[in-house]
């Protein structure tokens, strides 16, 4: 028996090549919309870099870098409509920005609090840290939409490591069995902390996992915003029109550390990182837009300055927000607190008052 080799079907779908040349059919996006997506990519990167800098100063909690994955995060959220749902992990904060979650709201959570004004109406579940669990929530949201007869789609996103979790497989299975209007996205960034992609699965692609569940899948260049957008747009509309779920693997790379608590020099070759840095998703899209005269050096500088300013202002807002009340975690334990919890809360408040 031979070991299965990666064949031609495992070449990811591209619209822009690494140099930003158009090599596929353009999705229907206006110039304005493309510039908006570009700006969200820059915003995601600026936010990531800023929070990491703040973490080094002791002003932010543990944070996972988004750098290198901006095309996937922005491209997967952009085709969604306001009534759609999004369930992400911690690596897709730029997706939340595309959906309209205010930057200060997200920044506040990296001060170590939960934003008490999380905009529930935007239908973005809070950042999920338990690997893979959100995929089942996305499927459940989609099942509910189908039961209710609503033209609503749900998108769930996880990383390559999450595909080894039971919940990922159960989510794919439920999605297939119930033909749920869901798109399940795997951001394959090559690494689950220190464990490389090939140690997660012997499957030639993670997209290939869909076949065993009867779920059609797409394998797409995750650093190509137009390709991610195109594939997602089609998958979302397929779901909306009652044609069921899709599994999408976006091939990308985690340029930074897993989180601020991680040191990737312990386990991976810097040569590999540099090779991927050359495939930078922002630079690629930038080249394409410049060739269409939608961007130039001056405009790029302006946008970078704008998003950095936006992030700085957001941090100021987040840092000026009052900390959560010390006893606020009682509020969110359950709707109505029985006497036992009221007593514990009163006890905590007495402690806060007398510091002992």
């Amino acid at each position, binding site marked *: 028996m031979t070991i299965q080799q990666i064949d031609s079907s495992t070449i990811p779908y591209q619209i822009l090549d690494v140099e930003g040349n158009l090599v596929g059919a353009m999705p229907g996006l206006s110039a304005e919309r493309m510039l908006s997506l570009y700006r969200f990519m820059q915003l995601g990167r600026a936010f990531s870099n800023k929070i990491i800098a703040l973490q080094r100063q002791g002003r932010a909690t543990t944070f996972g870098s988004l750098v290198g994955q901006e095309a996937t995060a922005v491209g997967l959220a952009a085709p969604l409509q306001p009534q759609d*749902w999004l*369930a992400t992990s911690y690596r897709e904060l730029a997706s939340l920005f595309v959906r309209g979650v205010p930057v200060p709201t997200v920044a506040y959570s990296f001060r170590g609090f*939960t*934003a*008490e*004004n*999380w*905009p*529930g109406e935007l239908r973005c*579940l*809070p950042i999920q840290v*338990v690997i893979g*669990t959100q*995929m*089942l*929530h*996305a*499927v*459940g*949201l*989609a*099942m*509910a*939409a189908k*039961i*209710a007869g609503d033209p609503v789609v*749900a998108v769930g996103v996880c990383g390559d490591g999450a595909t080894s979790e*039971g*919940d990922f497989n*159960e*989510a794919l*299975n*439920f999605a297939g*069995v119930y033909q749920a209007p869901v798109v399940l996205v795997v951001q394959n960034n090559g690494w689950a902390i220190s464990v490389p992609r090939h140690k997660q699965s012997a499957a030639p692609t993670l997209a290939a996992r869909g076949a065993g569940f009867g779920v059609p899948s797409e394998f797409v260049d995750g650093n190509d915003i137009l390709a991610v957008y195109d594939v997602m747009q089609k998958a979302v509309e397929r779901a909306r029109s009652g044609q069921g779920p899709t599994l999408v693997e976006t091939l990308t790379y985690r340029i930074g550390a897993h989180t601020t608590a991680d040191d990737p020099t312990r386990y991976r070759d810097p040569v590999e990182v540099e090779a991927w840095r050359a495939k930078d998703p922002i630079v690629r899209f930038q080249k394409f837009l410049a060739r269409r005269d939608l961007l130039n050096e001056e405009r790029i500088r302006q946008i970078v300055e704008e998003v950095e300013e936006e992030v700085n202002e957001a941090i100021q807002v987040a840092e000026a927000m009052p900390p959560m009340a010390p006893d*606020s*975690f009682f*509020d*969110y*334990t*359950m*709707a*109505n607190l*029985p*006497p*036992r*919890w009221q007593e514990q809360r009163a006890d905590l408040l007495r402690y806060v008052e007398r510091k002992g």
Partner: protein
Amino acid sequence: MQMTMIEALNSALALEMERDQRVILLGQDIGKNGGVFRVTEHLQQKFGEERVFDTPLSESGIIGSSVGMAIYGLRPIAEIQFAGFLFVCMNQLVSQAARIRFRSAGAYTCPLVVRAPYGGGVRTPELHSDSLEGVFLQTPGLKVVIPSNPYDAKGLLASAVADPDPVLFLENIKLYRSFRQETPEEHYSIPLGKAKTVQEGTDVSVFAYGAMVNVALEAVKLAQQEMGTSVEIIDLRTAWPLDEQAIVNSVEKTGRAIVVHEAPRAGGIGAEVTAIINEHCLYSLLKPVERVTGYDTPYPVPGLEDYYLPTPAKVLTALRRAMEP
């Protein structure tokens, strides 16, 4: 109407589905088959496959997708075929269903009922008899309800469905068909978190729930005959959160307390009841609190389970000790 607990639960589910279009049922074998214990019998026929549906054999999938459906605005009632299989979906139940209100600072909630049969004495295979309620004392955000009779089962299930947060509803297998009770055909509810005084007494308080209420009743008859003891029996009905006021009121009256449950002893409901007594009415106690429970071992094989379970004789021994001068 005289109903078994199975019939009472079936009636409650049907009424909830009639009252509220958002209520849906999902689980393994609950559709055409009506559930392995027939709790959902005829419900798929009555309400359609869209609202009553079988799932793949996938406990985490059942709870995880229910979390999504509950967030969306449905009121899912999920059946886990046996409580022992809750271990397979602990993550979705504990870190997701019970925490979404907390994780989103109230932006999203999970009004989900998870029904699961539990309890021993019916010679089931491994992990079909285990009592897991003690595990859920340390899973904030989740309530645990355990009825002891058909009437309570129906009323408590209605409240569980109406609750804005997830409720684990544990149904004792032995009680499913062991007796009938007059149960209204119409809708009614019994509040969660409220214990019921089954029998008033002045000498000893016995706290029990599920199948152990009847075990306690038998023991108490024997104690009355033997020693003339006046025993108060409190059916806790909601295992978490406990009705602390009912516990304290009773112990302040009697000065003696015995807790009876099938679940293992360590860190369980009995331990918590004892702690509540210590905190609120220690000086009312005339004797140490007794716990008559399962042992801190795996639930044994069917041939040995009668040794493991609390029996009227074991409870009577505790009552005798409590009443020693």
